[in-house]
């Protein structure tokens, strides 16, 4: 007789949906809105069936009016609702920066705590299949600069569900960023109604040679690099899935650095002004003595992404980039047979511009 929970493998998209569903079951004030929320594609499956379950009074489509609708959600939030809004691409959310920054982030502060804005804004980072310059931006750093906003980027399906529930229960605005390629990735997703804190990193792979603090999809890339480095070169790096962008769990980074003394930060954004830079600067300021070498950012190059799949091939850093950075940092040699084996293992199979479905957790 099996008493332990079996592994319940579900995709990140499923986990988001289940998190939304359970949060809506728990609390009648949770409402869900976004362009396409109730449509047949249901935001990549993440809102499937929710209108059927919760009715048209709680699950809505919306006009194309990002700033206005954001303000409307803020107005609803200070009136006792807990809205969740979805943007199919984070690029569209740029239209609503005014309401997010001037109102949502500051309402609680500027009215001396007299009102709360419980409001979750889901933003999806596009990648692949010619997303191009206006559908592939990864703009977490813009939002993370703003006091009053929390910004999270769950990586695993497990955390997606738990952080969704926690974000909805949070009494302030939470920018909830989902990397499009994560939607396909499976993990153990318990059926229970659980929370994952919005301010804690998690160790994906334990090691004592180099700390890799990684965000969102890059945490998967780092994890794959860690496994290959372990298997083929006997190098154990510590991979932190940062999970939260604001606040940053610097304690977790410092704890790991105390062991390793070496830091790589892997981000999904363009390098300049990125959150990777922010982590590095905090370590330089407050963890100077822990560092035994120059820290390294692994991030996208400082230009927009061209649409052509030929041109996007080479834009994104990945497992190999991270593994190479580790080896370089440790002064390792790249000509050994071990290294060749590692490269062979990490070599990408299939097209570069569709999600690599070999990632499968559980993490």
């Amino acid at each position: 007789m099996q008493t332990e929970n079996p592994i319940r493998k579900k995709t990140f998209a499923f986990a988001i949906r289940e998190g939304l569903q359970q949060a809506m079951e728990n609390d009648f004030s949770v409402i869900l809105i976004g362009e396409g929320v109730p449509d047949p594609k249901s935001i990549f499956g993440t809102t499937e069936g929710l209108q059927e379950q919760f009715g048209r009074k709680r699950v809505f489509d919306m006009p194309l009016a990002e700033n206005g609708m954001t303000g409307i959600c803020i107005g609803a939030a200070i009136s006792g609702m807990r809205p969740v809004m979805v943007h199919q691409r984070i690029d569209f959310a740029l239209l609503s920066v005014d309401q997010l920054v001037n109102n949502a982030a500051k309402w609680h502060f500027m009215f001396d705590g007299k009102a709360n804005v419980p409001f979750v804004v889901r933003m999806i980072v596009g990648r692949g299949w010619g997303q191009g310059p206006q559908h592939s931006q990864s703009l977490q750093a813009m939002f993370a600069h703003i006091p009053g906003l929390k910004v999270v980027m769950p990586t695993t399906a497990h955390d997606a569900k738990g952080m969704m529930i926690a974000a909805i229960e949070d009494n302030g605005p939470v920018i909830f960023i989902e990397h499009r390629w994560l939607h396909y990735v499976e993990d153990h997703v318990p059926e229970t109604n659980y929370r994952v804190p919005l301010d804690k990193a998690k160790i994906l792979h334990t090691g004592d040679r180099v700390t890799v603090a990684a965000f969102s999809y890059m945490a998967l890339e780092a994890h794959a690099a860690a496994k290959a480095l372990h298997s083929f070169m006997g190098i154990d790096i510590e991979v932190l899935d940062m999970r939260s962008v604001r606040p940053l769990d610097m304690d977790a980074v410092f704890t790991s650095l105390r062991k390793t003394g070496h830091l790589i930060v892997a981000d999904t954004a363009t390098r300049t002004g990125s959150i990777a830079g922010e982590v590095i600067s905090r370590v330089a300021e407050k963890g100077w003595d822990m560092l035994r070498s120059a820290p390294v950012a692994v991030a996208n190059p400082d230009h927009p992404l061209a649409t052509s799949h030929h041109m996007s091939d080479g834009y994104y850093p990945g497992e190999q980039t991270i593994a190479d950075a580790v080896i370089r940092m440790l002064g390792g040699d790249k000509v050994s047979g071990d290294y060749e084996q590692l490269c062979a293992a990490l070599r990408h199979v299939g097209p570069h511009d569709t999600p690599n479905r070999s990632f499968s957790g559980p993490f």
Partner: protein
Amino acid sequence: MLRIRLVEEALAERYADQEMRCPMHLCIGQEAIAAGVAAALRPDDVMFSNHRAHGHYLAKGGDVKAMVAEIYGRSTGCSGGRGGSMHVIDQSVGFMGATPIVGGTVPLAVGAAWAAALKGEDKVSVVFFGDGCFEEGVVHESLNFAALHKLPILFICENNSFSVYTRIEERQPRRPIHVVAQAHGWDAWHSDGNDVEAVNAIAIEAACRARAGNGPQFLEFDTYRWREHCGPNFDDELNYRSEHEITAGKAGDPLLRSRSKLLQDGAVSDGELDKLKEEITDEIDSAFEFALSSPVPTYADGAGKVYAD
């Protein structure tokens, strides 16, 4: 109305003391709109406002002590001193907040109406904004959504024909503002905004229609700002409006008109009005006393509460 005028005149007078160290937009000359609309509302109806918020706040029943203290930057202020003149709030009377990003609170008011509709509450939501604000896209997004869901909301457009020093003719084509709302499917109303009875009559009917499920109501009221856009003074010397225009504008004084009307109708006597004025003056004096005698906060008092618990 008289109360709003006297409070603002007192603020203007004492602004020179340099203890009210924040931008301040007075509504002197425009009081009838705030007073006439607020008198048409129930206590649990909600109100939002903009940078020129004192009149709205007071008309809805906001605490004058807390407002003056707010402008003085004391923790006893209605926003704990964090907001100053441009960010006032008194949720206990349904005044949900005012902020100075033009257009910023318009969708919030729609959101409050939406929340009321979703919760089945018998409330209307009201937002005040200026003719300049009508140019912001977010207002149109709000018009669309409110019309779509037939929300119980009143938009009150205070058309004083200026955005700072810029005339409406420099900013908008020559068509009445409210016709645009009408095209979006709103009920639209337009009248002299310096006639408090006319304002009130329209607001009563509009609120009634909104409450009865007839959808959103757009009220455009013409009025005139007497003093400078921001600050306590007159600014006639800047010559962006002619002496003639200013004289004509002030001739429409809503207070004077309402006073004559009341006296003529025999609704009040001169003596009663004087007594009222005295009472208000006392109230104001004690509000300033309250503000000035409130403890002086420090940096630390304005540093926390970034995130809700």
